[in-house]
């Protein structure tokens, strides 16, 4: 088996999603290479070389790859796919953007968001918002997989892979990065946070999320939201936890004013410990919470912040 992992990085360093993806690759077994495509990405490449179990880091360092636009990444990955049996990327917005096109150009299926490796060609993945688990066998010569990062541990950083520089460059000329609005925050990213406190429709408005932030400050937590809160315009979509937002599995997930729609549960039910604070004791969220507190959130949450 010869496996290629597409690294997610910000040119300076590797994103932790890459480490989870390498663990999935190692579960398949065989030789694992990591492709770091970026611009001035030597920092990320050097870090990738430290990932345990990786034999080779392939580096494509060119302005064309700075923002990893799909149109430019596709020819590069397809070229590097020669001789590979598996191509993996994390199921992040970047991995989801790029990898299906790679599969199409290789004329193979993509198996999305795998949560377990059963064998070299058989994988489990959630369907219907996690309400069913499908075991899927690939019939293709090359397996193209995106990996649900919360289902695999992070690989350690005590390896010493060789670094190989790639020279071929494709700028398809079809797309151009214009700009980005990145939510500036001192807090950890949702998908990497050990503790998350999320608010739902019960928060009432966006300003009220400040009471969650007071708790987050005490716990070093990330702040999330349910789709209902996003749809109601309380907060921005990048805070959304759920089937259509981010999939998270922190050590502690505190759901505040969230009823527990299937859509939301799909995004957080693999958290180690779940706390629910809701004034409706019939709310479905209580059926999966380890600790439920039936209370008015506007009293309970400030009290929680005070007691931490």
């Amino acid at each position: 088996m010869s496996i290629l992992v597409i690294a997610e990085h910000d040119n300076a360093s590797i994103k932790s999603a890459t480490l989870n993806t390498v663990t999935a690759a190692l579960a398949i077994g065989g030789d694992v290479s990591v492709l770091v495509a970026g611009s001035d990405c030597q920092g990320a490449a050097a870090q990738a070389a430290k990932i345990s179990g990786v034999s080779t880091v392939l580096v494509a360092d060119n302005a064309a790859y700075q923002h990893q636009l799909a149109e430019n990444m596709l020819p590069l990955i397809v070229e590097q796919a020669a001789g590979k049996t598996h191509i993996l990327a994390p199921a992040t917005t970047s991995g989801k953007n790029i990898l299906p096109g790679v599969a199409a150009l290789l004329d193979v299926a993509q198996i999305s968001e795998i949560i377990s490796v059963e064998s070299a060609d058989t994988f489990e993945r959630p369907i219907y918002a996690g309400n069913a688990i499908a075991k899927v066998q690939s019939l293709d010569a090359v397996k193209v997989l995106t990996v649900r990062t919360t289902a695999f541990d992070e690989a350690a950083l005590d390896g010493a892979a060789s670094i190989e520089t790639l020279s071929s460059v494709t700028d398809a000329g079809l797309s151009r990065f214009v700009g980005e609005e990145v939510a500036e925050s001192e807090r950890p990213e949702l998908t990497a946070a050990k503790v998350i406190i999320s608010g739902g429709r019960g928060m009432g408005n966006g300003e009220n999320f400040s009471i969650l932030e007071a708790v987050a400050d005490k716990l070093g937590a990330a702040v999330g939201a349910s789709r209902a809160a996003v749809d109601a315009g309380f907060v921005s979509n990048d805070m959304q936890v759920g089937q259509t937002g981010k999939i998270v599995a922190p050590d502690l997930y505190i759901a505040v004013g969230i009823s527990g729609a299937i859509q939301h549960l799909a995004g957080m039910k693999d958290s180690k410990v779940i706390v629910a604070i809701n004034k409706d004791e019939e709310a479905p969220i209580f059926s999966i919470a380890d600790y439920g507190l039936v209370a008015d959130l506007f009293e309970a949450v400030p009290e929680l912040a005070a007691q931490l």
Partner: protein
Amino acid sequence: MKVLVAVKRVIDYNVKVRVKSDNSGVDLSNVKMAMNPFCEIAVEEAIRLKEAGIATEVIAVSLGVKACQEQLRTALALGADRAIHVESEEELESLNVAKLLAKVVEEEQPGIVILGKQAIDTDNNQTGQMLAALTGMAQGTFASKIDVQGDKALVTREVDGGLQTVELNMPIIATTDLRLNEPRYASLPNIMKAKRKPLAVKTIEELGVSIKAHTKLVAVTPPPERQGGIKVTDVAELVDKLKNEAKVI
């Protein structure tokens, strides 16, 4: 400029999904079916492009069993001008859907193809990207804004850290995210009118696309159940449990 919009018939998002006892799949008998929610957003965006004078014609396309025509009629009632149904009794994998759509794109030559970012049944999130790769068109996935400016389109994308804007050469493939728009409801007169709008039915053979199975579904099982825990009486007890029992803070 034509806009092609793809719609998928899926289980209604309000329906509680049940796994069949023989683990062969999900029980879809006598279950309410509907247009995939992300496809509703795609249809809405296509209609808005026409209302804004950017698109001249909106064509809805769906692939699958005959009943998909219900969702195509919905798209027509919402404002699509005509529909194409690619009939298949067998469930089509994403890559095969993308290949068939690529053929429709070749025939219709749309300026924009809009698809939902994912379907709520298989949760694959891949058909739009595959279509872009097969047609060589630029892609704006997970779009929260589509702004057509002559031979370019500015697409704002929902990415993990926030929003990213890319400039794409037309024609483009776009996939919709939740905040792109709020879909309208079809009015009764428009539902009646939709019955008379043209709906062409094509077979896979007529499109001349060869498809094959790329995956085999081995089993479908219910997810592991998470057991509910206890109710605490107040915040002090909660903090105590988190510190001393769960040991997570």
